[in-house]
């Protein structure tokens, strides 16, 4: 067992030594295939006898309904949205992730603080402010970033949803009035922010312009190594 650590100080009332499970984060933009990969990983891990808990952004009981409503109207300032998302994150960290780790689960997280930070940074947030905000997050045992070309993201998004998402296109920032143009430019800026974060937080980059099967095989190989380290 490897002791869990926090980026900054621990959460109030939290003893990191009691966390025996494993936290794996799959990061990447929308339509990069994260959800499919997590689905497959989850089945694979359970077949091997590991208990799995799945978490993602914007799923907290506390603020998810209010967040959805706020996004619909687009009336909150970027700063308010940042704090709202941070509330949602910590709610899930404390009420889902930590209890699951305490119970020895493998926690598969569909995105983590990095996406939240990148989104805030693109919208002009100060990086020291954002990093402090998320400083009580547990450092994951592994972070895999699915890196896909913007072109393939557009294609996948259009095939699945028949349209581009307002937020994933960064339409709230007003880069361009043209939806497609905005999507391409927004994803490009986002990517450069992810790169900065990668330098700082050191996550593993995976080429997502490959078949689902190939990516899955790649992920399993990497995860097996971490599993051995934690559950020995």
């Amino acid at each position, binding site marked *: 067992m490897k002791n869990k650590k926090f980026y900054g*100080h621990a959460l109030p*009332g939290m003893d990191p030594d009691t966390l025996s499970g494993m936290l794996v984060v799959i990061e990447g933009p929308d339509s990069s295939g994260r959800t499919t990969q997590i689905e497959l990983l989850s089945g694979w891990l359970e077949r091997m006898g590991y208990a799995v808990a799945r978490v993602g952004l914007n799923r907290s009981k506390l603020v998810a309904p*209010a967040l959805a409503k706020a996004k619909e109207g687009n009336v909150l300032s970027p700063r308010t949205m940042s704090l709202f998302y941070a*509330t949602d994150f910590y709610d899930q960290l404390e009420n889902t992730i930590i209890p699951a780790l305490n119970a020895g689960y493998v926690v598969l997280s569909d995105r983590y603080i990095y996406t939240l930070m990148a989104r805030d940074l693109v919208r002009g947030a100060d990086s020291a402010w954002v990093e402090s*905000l998320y400083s009580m997050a547990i450092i994951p045992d592994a972070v895999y970033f699915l890196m896909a070309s913007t072109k393939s993201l557009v294609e996948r998004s259009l095939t699945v949803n028949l349209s581009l998402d307002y937020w994933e296109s960064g339409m709230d920032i007003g880069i361009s009035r043209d939806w497609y143009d905005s999507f391409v430019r927004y994803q490009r800026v986002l990517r450069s922010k992810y790169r900065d974060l990668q330098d700082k937080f050191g996550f593993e980059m995976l080429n997502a312009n490959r078949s689902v099967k190939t990516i899955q095989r790649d992920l399993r190989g990497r995860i097996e190594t971490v599993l051995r380290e934690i559950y020995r």
Partner: protein
Amino acid sequence: MNEMEIPGKLIAVEGLDGSGKSTQIHLLYQWLVGLGVKVFFSEWNSSGIVKGATRRGKKKHLLTPTTFSLIHATDFADRYERQILPMLKAGYIVLCDRYMFTSFARDGVRGCDPRWLRRMYGFAKRPDVVFYFRLPLEAALGRILDGRTQLKYFEAGMDIGLSPDIEESFTIFQGKVKEQYDTMIDEFGFHVVDATKPIPAQQEVVRTYIDDNMDLSGFRRRVVR
């Protein structure tokens, strides 16, 4: 925008529940309105959009010290960016019934890291003056415990398990909050008002301070309504 470009003034009141600060800021507001000054009043935990989530969290006791703190910061950011800051830029005198110091005090007692709290609220302008209505703990407790019928769960700090008895929990919690406020007097240069004095005497202190330190003629409305 730097400080030079913010023509408005920001005045905050802080103090324990029962310190009488809301009464004092109300009287201050009335005075300023009477003088024909552009004035705006904002209250802690009152933004419409985040109120729903706050209420849900409090009712169901879903909040931890961290999410309790974050949700209040969200509420504050919403009010700050949509009202307080625009008002200040438009040259208003903005009165705040509680400001970030309330979070520093309460969330600090709940175990949140003081530096984390201060960084989180780092985006907001520091007030031009903070009036801290200070009184002995027993006096504040007396005003609340005698007057109000029911204490609220979070208000009494029941969430951190100080005592299963709500009145006792409230007493311990308020004592710790007071300690936090007292240490902030120097840290943030609070202007301390003796809250045991009669109401008009306290108000006199507040008005005198403002008269001496701010040129109110610069804040008069241009258009008379």
